[in-house]
């Protein structure tokens, strides 16, 4: 393998990893605050691509306007899901909330099939992102560079929000202990809703860039990325944002390089994430950045 091709794969891996990271952050934030796997996160990601698709293809709005609207709509969708299907179950056994989350995931997915049909649609190509660059002997699409940059910027904003704003501190407080947070005067429900909103908006950014990168969009397109990004979050240490990013990169780079180096394993590409999940759960269940919590008896 020549150096150029290796660099090409690395660039692909990094941009794939960034996408995974953006989605994984949503999982990790929700898990951190509710101890819940938001099974519907993959579907929320999928809806963002459709919002963007319709904005451009049907309404013909400029892409940057569409992207902002799509991101806001998706945030709203995530918050509504929490309001309708998770909040009533806040004190219910965990298994019930998990089942509700699975229900929401299926509901959104099938609503998408009903509304947008199960046939794939072609995400519009936007010149700004599809342009090709040549760096040395490596030809790279603008998108491949845009994705990691957008991810890095959003990550910086998010970390600032969480560490330096009132809402961010409220989030961390609620994640530690709902009861205590309530006693301190924090509106727990609002904080949880906000967490869902932010997580969903990040997934929306991921979804839109996913659509640009893989223009074949489908109502079922959220399932695999959803599962994989949850795995990325576990890998990095669930509850930890930097962990989710690290997990996303390991998964993205790993997948791309696996297929690049062992072409006969292409059919197993989707299994890679699951194998990784099982290994991490066996050897370091708290993930790379996670803290150990033992149940008080």
């Amino acid at each position, binding site marked *: 393998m020549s150096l150029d091709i290796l660099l090409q794969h690395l660039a692909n891996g990094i941009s794939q990893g960034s996408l995974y990271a953006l989605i994984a952050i949503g999982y990790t934030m929700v898990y951190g605050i509710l*101890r*819940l*796997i938001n099974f519907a996160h993959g579907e929320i990601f999928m809806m963002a691509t459709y919002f963007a698709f319709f904005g451009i293809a049907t309404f013909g709005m400029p892409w940057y306007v569409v992207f902002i609207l799509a991101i806001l709509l998706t945030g709203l969708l995530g918050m509504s899901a929490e309001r*309708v*299907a998770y909040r*009533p*179950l806040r004190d*219910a056994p*965990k*298994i*019930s909330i*998990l*089942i*509700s989350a*699975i*229900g*929401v*995931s*299926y*509901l959104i*997915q*099938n*609503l*998408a*099939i*009903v509304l947008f*049909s*199960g046939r794939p649609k072609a995400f519009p190509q936007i010149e700004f992102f599809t342009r090709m660059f040549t760096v040395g002997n490596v030809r790279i699409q603008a998108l491949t560079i845009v994705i990691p940059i957008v991810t890095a910027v959003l990550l910086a904003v998010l970390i600032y929000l969480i560490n330096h704003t009132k809402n961010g501190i409220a989030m961390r407080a609620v994640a530690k202990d709902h009861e205590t947070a309530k006693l301190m005067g924090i509106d727990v429900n609002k904080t949880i809703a906000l967490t869902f909103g932010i997580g969903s908006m990040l997934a929306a950014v991921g979804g839109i860039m996913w659509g640009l990168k893989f223009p074949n969009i489908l*109502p079922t397109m959220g*399932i695999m990325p959803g*599962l994989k990004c*949850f*795995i990325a979050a*576990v890998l990095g240490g669930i509850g930890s944002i930097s962990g989710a990013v690290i997990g996303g990169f390991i998964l993205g780079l790993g997948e791309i390089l696996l297929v690049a180096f062992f072409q006969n394993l292409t*059919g*197993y590409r*989707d*299994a890679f*994430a*699951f*194998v990784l*999940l*099982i290994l991490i*759960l*066996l050897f370091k*269940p708290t993930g790379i950045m996670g803290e150990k919590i033992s*149940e008080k*008896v």
Partner: protein
Amino acid sequence: MKNKKNIYTLISIALVILFLLLANSFFDSYQIRILNLCAIYVVLGLSMNLINGFTGLFSLGHAGFMAVGAYTTAILTMPIAAKEANYFMTPLVSPLNNMVWPFLPALIMGGLLSAVAAFIIGAPALRLKGDYLAIATLGFGEIIRILITNAQSLTNGALGLKSIPNTTNIWWSFGIAAATTVIMILLINSSYGRAFKAIREDEIAAENMGINLFKHKMLAFVIGAFFAGIGGGLLGNLLGTVDPNMFKFTLTFNILFVIVLGGMGSITGTIISAFIVTISMEVLRFLDAPINLGFITIPGITGMRMVVYSLLLIIVIIYFRQGLMGTREFSWDSVIALIKKAPFKKGGAK
């Protein structure tokens, strides 16, 4: 009194058999197929309820276990000619290529291999709890599907298998559903069943009462997988075809819906709910298909059925968390109480 109840039970069984006899000769093949599906969902629902409802493990790998059972049974029972026709890309490995087993041993083999798969999966996964277990079993289910897709010379890969003998009939499916029910009842009411329930109620207390958590979780998981494998085998030989796409998470979702609706931890609930869900799935098919009103045809909307189902799942879990039966079971006493009460007051015994 006890005698009387036994007589009631015998009469009920006789009535069910009579119904099946009549159904078998008067129902059309579509209706018979639905009946078969009901019985198969009883087997699948009970097997998942043992793991999720009685032992309290949140496992989502059922479709994977069913796939193992379905493929094993299909490959073992398929006539040699059909095998040659199916595996035209890559021939089936020897000695499977010229081996044909009768249905029952093939089904049991399907169940056993599925149990072996569960053992291999359970060894790492059952050390996890709650939603981690859920995601790990779901992942394993996917891995099984990916392995099946790629093991061309064993499973015919993505093409799947066609012209599997349609061995499954009313007698097989209801016979096995009945056997599964009896075994589950015996198991649940045994000392081991009590240990499973103890784990569901409180793992830490159970472990401190001397129950080896890993061993008992593994027992429930492996036995559940065994019956899931048998259910898968029945399904494959009912439909006549299997392919990797059949065993996606949707299948696990359907079974989960059965046990949630029936009540996690109730055998009676699972049986009732398996019938309700299977039949309504068929009835609600009209939602997906075009409706002809004579003067106008409303085009069908694919996916509508699953929209309704997922909504129902959410509603059940939010408003009727106990499902139809909670952890209660059928007993003649409650039926008698219900009948006695009925003339005076609407509603029934709790």
